[in-house]
């Protein structure tokens, strides 16, 4: 082996090691594919090598964020490397209208809580305390009730069933073999019913501080007992919390969110947060045909245009859009704040939910509808 080949091999091995150190895990099989590809094609220049590596060592677009700078460190600038495209223009990066420097247009009515909403993020971690005995009892009821309350939809997949409009020819024929070709029983297929997807969007901003923990416990119950459910929190940013909520124990699951939901008990940017959700194609799929429940007081700062547009689109995407707000628990509540009055036309049901008991009442209402 010539000295040059040994040096080249060491260089490539060093590059692969560096990729791993930078956080891009490349299994041995893919590394082997990379080396095979180099051998098979004989890269012309650094740019060609860059693309060979991109095709063989990465598995998603996000990997390029690690791959590109590491490649550049080892092999130099490889010509015009692709710029990272955003899923949509970073409208969220624009300061929220009415934000810093702009005079704060206070919400007209709707309780005291929303008046404290701000644009800033909090500095200390929130503590989602343990559930009380009473809470646990209601959670048990919720788990029992939720399954029946979620609207059903017919699956596209046909399954064998006692009744149904389609004859299960395969099963009929298979059974007839045992009876010397005689068809004794006609078997059928149908499209079974299954739960619609449920999407929970939970406001964890400062104005919702008193209710956030209860809402998250409700989400934990939903994640535990429903087939398809997704949970996001929002305050000044959007956070997907479905996975952490899969932990079996409610206090453990909700408690772990203190480390993840970094904007809890901070400011409110409902419109931009919902738009962040809608800008992600993967998230939009979660809303399509789903029962969408927004748990928020709807007190938006500044311009309510983004919030109105986002809620309208959510409503068009989903099966139904429920808006649960603690303010509506007060019989005197009227949704006349700029934010709520703007989105009211897109909301199917506006209901009062401030804790687990009121959530349970709404779930019962849902089951009756």
């Amino acid at each position: 082996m010539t000295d040059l080949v040994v040096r080249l091999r060491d260089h490539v091995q060093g590059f692969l090691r560096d990729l791993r150190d930078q956080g891009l895990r490349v299994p041995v099989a893919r590394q082997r594919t990379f080396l095979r590809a180099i051998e098979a094609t004989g890269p012309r220049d650094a740019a060609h090598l860059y693309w060979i590596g991109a095709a063989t060592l990465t598995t998603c677009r996000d990997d390029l964020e690690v791959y590109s700078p590491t490649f550049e460190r080892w092999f130099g600038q490889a010509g015009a490397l692709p710029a990272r495209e955003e899923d949509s223009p970073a409208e969220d990066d624009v300061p929220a209208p009415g934000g810093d420097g702009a005079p704060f247009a206070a919400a007209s009515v709707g309780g005291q809580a929303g008046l404290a909403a701000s644009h800033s993020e909090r500095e200390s971690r929130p503590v989602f305390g343990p559930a009380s005995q009473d809470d646990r009892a209601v959670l048990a009821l919720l788990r029992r009730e939720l399954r029946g309350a979620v609207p059903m939809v017919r699956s596209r997949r046909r399954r064998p069933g006692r009744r149904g409009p389609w004859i299960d020819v395969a099963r009929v024929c298979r059974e007839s073999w045992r009876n010397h070709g005689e068809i004794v029983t006609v078997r059928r297929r149908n499209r079974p019913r299954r739960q619609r997807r449920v999407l929970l969007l939970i406001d964890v901003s400062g104005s919702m501080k008193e209710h956030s923990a209860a809402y998250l416990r409700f989400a934990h119950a939903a994640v535990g007992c429903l087939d398809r459910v997704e949970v996001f929190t929002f305050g000044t940013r959007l956070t997907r919390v479905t996975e952490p909520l899969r932990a079996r124990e409610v206090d453990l699951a909700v408690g772990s969110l203190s480390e993840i939901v970094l904007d809890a008990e901070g400011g409110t940017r409902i419109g931009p947060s919902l738009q962040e959700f809608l800008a992600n194609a993967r998230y939009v799929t979660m809303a399509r045909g789903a029962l969408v429940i927004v748990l928020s007081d709807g007190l938006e700062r500044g311009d309510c245009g983004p919030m109105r547009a986002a809620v309208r689109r959510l409503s068009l995407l989903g099966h139904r859009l429920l808006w649960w707000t603690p303010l509506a628990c007060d019989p005197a509540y009227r949704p006349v704040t700029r934010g709520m009055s703007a989105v009211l036309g897109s909301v199917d049901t506006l209901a009062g939910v401030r804790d687990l008991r009121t959530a349970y009442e709404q779930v019962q209402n849902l089951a009756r509808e």
Partner: protein
Amino acid sequence: MPADQETLGRRLGEEGYLADEGLLTAVHLAGVLGLPLLLEGEPGVGKTEVANVLARVLGRELIRLQCYEGLDASQALYEWDYPKQLLSLRAAEVEGRAAGGLYREEFLLQRPLLRALRAASGAVLLIDEIDRADSEFEAFLLEFLSDFQITIPELGTIRAASAPFVVLTSNRTRELHDALKRRCLYHWIPFPDAEREQAIIQAQAPGLDERSAARLVAAVHRIRGLALLKRPGIAESASWARGVQALAGEGSSWPEAMRRSAGLLVKHEEDLALVSRHAAEVFGD
């Protein structure tokens, strides 16, 4: 497969597909190494078209499996023709002869994956929008993509005579399994730069002069820069170019034709309203 990457690029170009170096490298490697190619990118950037054009370039049959929720093995792989089996059994009974085997080739209904394996001179197999299928279906694909073989219990294991060129596409509506990704080469198709998009538009809207194409592409790029619900892909910009060309041919002024046919480019009412608010800067009125 063309001998080298340059030839591949030229042949794709002759078929009207102008690929950048990244995509060319990925397609070339997939051919050389015999690995499936997973393409991701926003809708309308030409993922599916890669397979269509490749089939023409390679002179192979294009076999397409469109994925959807609920897709299962019997729709993707094979199914037995049960009514035909039953009729054959009855006929044998009437004629007083032995029915013979019921799991013979003549009773086999071949679905896209099996057809791709059995194509004599290889096929281009397009597994489109794999992210729409259930994750169980991905697991089912693993054996197929690893060894290009499938097992039919009644017939045994069927291996590809000539391995198909497999292209998988995904719109990233959900995360794919690592096991599937591990078996594929990967390429993200970005929106093209202005120069490439202009060449694509001119190829797809014959007769469009260079200056007009440049003007259209500049407008498309400005529109993509707006906060749209759905940014237009290449397919939309090419169809817009043809629309503008048609209206201009009927006597409309160029900006007027661009504005009137904007519905070919953006497909949401909100996006149309946004574009018309920025009409002056976008269409250059």
